[in-house]
């Protein structure tokens, strides 16, 4: 059973992560893809709080994601099997 990764909200700050999946409707998926968030891309959490939005470093830019959105993005730490 492949490990699909953890929700972004649970990832720690500063580590390099790979996006493994996006469990969202097509509207949000496309919106995220337009901003550069596609499965396989590497991101880094700049500021994750225990509540509230998450700021990530993505393809050279900073993207703010609401908590609901961050819960739908699955990631794995780079270096994890």
């Amino acid at each position, binding site marked *: 059973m492949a490990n699909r990764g953890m929700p972004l909200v649970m990832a720690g700050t500063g580590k390099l992560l790979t996006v493994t999946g996006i469990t969202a409707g*097509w*509207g949000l998926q*496309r*919106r995220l893809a*337009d901003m*550069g968030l596609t499965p396989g891309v590497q991101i880094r959490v700049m500021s994750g709080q225990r509540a509230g939005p998450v700021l990530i470093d*993505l*393809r*050279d*830019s900073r993207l703010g994601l609401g908590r609901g959105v961050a819960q739908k993005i699955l990631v794995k730490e780079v270096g994890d099997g």
Partner: protein
Amino acid sequence: MAKKEIVIALAGNPNSGKTTVFNNLTGAKQHVGNWPGVTVEKKEGSCSFRGYSIKVVDLPGVYSLTAYSPDEVVARNFIIDEKPDVVVDIVDASNLERNLYLAVQIMEMGAPLIIALNMMDAAESRRYKIDVKTISQEMGVPVIPMVANRNKGTDELMEEIVRVAGKETEASGVRIEYGREVENEISRLEQAISEGPLASRYSPKWLAVKLLEGDEEVIKKFEEAKSG
């Protein structure tokens, strides 16, 4: 001697300095109106250069040209329907990856594209080394480095605009290969589309890609053609 008239459109991500380029090109000669049917501000200005009278249309800042928001629809429709002589995509050089996503889509529409590589100073301060020539070669379009908020590169951009507008050849830019399976489906769809009424107005290949992307506006066009 009558001035030759050309129409150019400025496209680009929000925060890419598009407004600054627009101001540099048009100076005080601009006016804000309304796009018909949609409440998006239409910014138009004009300037002249080398005997050309240039109308500059500032498209809304968008991240992509799939019809997700009214802004994108307006930008997209202007390029396809009005067919401006040149589309200048203002790209933030310190943020190339995401900015080029839009450029690639504009290329796909077959619009005559010039990439204005703006904010070169920001890229430099991050110690990025950008090979402008390689970008231009691999994308098949002219690339003009600029620092718009110091009005650097404006003249070079105008030169290029006038040069591209004067060319007789149609589209520019390379075509992206989507992988064999997708290309097969694109060809299938292209075939089906070519037999229909929409093929005369729009490039069948572009329509095919848009359909696979699930673009609502394009799907709607086909539904209307079906029932009409």
